[in-house]
């Protein structure tokens, strides 16, 4: 394989960050004690901390990263636009709206799958709207404008639902749904989100060939035997399932799907099919790193993941818009 080296580097990086993530936390415990606790059988508090708090957090970071990286790369491949990203085009905020509705109406309490399913539905609406508004060849301007409108509406409705909640804490949680956080998540969240994410990943991973063919345009792709309607639905369900499930448990984390494919594109010769797997692994590494950063920068505050990602991602986004404008002119 031509890109074996990249694959190994990304996997190593992700593994190192995964272990680092297990070692960072407010409870000051030594490196060896922490790791030993993962293999010990007796129930002591350290083992509890490692298994029930840090392990799910690290696993969720990987899951969120894979979902966001893969979705970003797939959306960009389909729309042939490097600005397409689940957060920027409003998919994440719509998923958050779905999740908040499920939580506040009690659907989530009545049956466990209600939460991810509602988030998924929110995401489906957004992806369908975006594909409809932006058209087959996602022009940057329509894409960004449609994304702004959908994000703003979903964000406002999320605030409304939380404002109407009888729970006094709900109102202050708007920031969680908008910015995302992995603090104090548990294995319950992992098992709730994983089946949907795997469905989404399988859908998106199967798009490589079609994405490559789409490099030459829709007509050329179709004449090469690519079934465009099927590709479109596979993309919609794949993005909605993975981003929806991710948002339902971790809130909306922006810019991962923008930054990761942008950095990795040159290393895979810009080939969309290779960018899919590379962005999946790279996304996992990025979210792990960001989640370590939030714990190191402000250990005693619950700094939101989306804040760190936006600080890294927004300048890059602006740069891409600038580049994009120059190309068009």
């Amino acid at each position, binding site marked *: 394989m031509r890109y074996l080296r990249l694959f190994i580097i990304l996997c190593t990086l992700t593994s190192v960050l995964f272990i680092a993530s297990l070692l960072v936390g407010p409870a000051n415990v030594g490196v060896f004690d922490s790791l030993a606790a993962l293999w010990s059988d007796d129930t002591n508090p350290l083992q509890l901390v490692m298994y029930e708090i840090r392990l799910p957090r690290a696993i969720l970071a990987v899951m969120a990263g894979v979902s966001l990286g893969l979705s970003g790369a797939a959306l960009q491949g389909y729309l042939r636009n490097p600005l397409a990203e689940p957060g920027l085009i409003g998919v994440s905020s719509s998923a958050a709206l779905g999740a908040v509705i499920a939580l506040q109406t009690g659907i989530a309490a009545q049956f466990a799958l209600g939460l991810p399913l509602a988030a998924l539905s929110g995401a489906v609406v957004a992806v369908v709207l975006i594909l409809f508004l932006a058209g087959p060849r996602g022009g940057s301007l329509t894409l960004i404008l449609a994304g702004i409108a959908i994000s703003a509406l979903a964000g406002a409705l999320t605030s409304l639902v939380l404002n109407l909640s009888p729970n006094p804490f709900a109102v202050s949680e708007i920031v969680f749904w908008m910015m995302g956080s992995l603090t104090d998540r548990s294995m319950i969240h992992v098992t709730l989100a994983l089946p949907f994410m795997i469905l989404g990943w399988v859908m998106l991973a199967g798009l490589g*060939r079609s994405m490559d063919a789409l*490099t030459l345009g829709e*007509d050329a792709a179709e*004449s090469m*035997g690519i079934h465009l309607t099927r590709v479109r639905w596979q993309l919609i369900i794949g993005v909605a399932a993975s981003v929806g499930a991710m948002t339902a448990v971790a809130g909306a984390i922006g810019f991962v799907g923008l930054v990761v494919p942008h950095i990795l594109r040159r290393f895979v010769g810009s*080939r969309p099919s290779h960018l899919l797997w590379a962005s999946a692994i790279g996304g996992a590494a990025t979210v792990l790193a960001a989640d370590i950063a939030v714990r190191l920068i402000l250990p005693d505050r619950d700094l939101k993941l989306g804040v760190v990602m936006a600080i890294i991602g927004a300048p890059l986004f602006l740069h891409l818009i600038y580049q994009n404008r120059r190309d068009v002119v």
Partner: protein
Amino acid sequence: MTLMSLDRLTVLRGECPVVDDVNLTVEKGDFIGLLGPNGAGKTTLMRGALGLVKTTGASSILDIKPAARAHHVAWLPQSREIAWPIDVETIVSLGRIPHGSQKLITNTDRAVVDRAIKRLDLTGFEHRIATRLSGGEQARVLIARALAQDTPLILADEVTAGLDPAHQISVMQIFQNLAAEGKGIVASIHDLGLAARHCTRLVLMHQGKLVADGAPTDVLTPENVKQVFGVESYFVQTDHGPIFQPVGIVR
């Protein structure tokens, strides 16, 4: 052997027929120049024949199962889109997508891709980034991609547009040779002189209808050219082959 036959093919845009009741057959060895003024329906005819737009009437390509169509016919759209900065060799090998998995490039694939690259005189360009090449070079890369699809029939839209004379002639010669080897080519062309010199057959369209089909001398008659394009023309056989030149607008 017939590679494609269209029977009363019609494409409607709303109520208005863009392609109107066209009958056409393409045989092995044909290099058909599809002629007609802007809006005559050349592109739509080809897209309709390929099943990319909804049609009424029959196209033999649509009788082939969708999955197998890509083994029979390759399509070169006019837009020359290359969305990402990918190297030339990879772009050309995209033509192998219908032939199996993208991951494992087989020896056959390799050989076909190399042949296509050589044929379009792209040797040495394999690792150049396609989007940074000149328009003419990009056009050749995309033709090589279509060749790599290794189909008996190729449909090409405005393939010489924007190329310098040398590249125009070389592209026409490549198609000429491919036809001589037994492939069928249908190419829409605006340069009537170029078409007259290189094509084995010309098909003239006007307002969606097929108005002439045959050898260049039979199709590019002064009457046809005057009626369809609204120009006076000069067409003569010389030692350098046939020379066709429009000379003035009909008043």
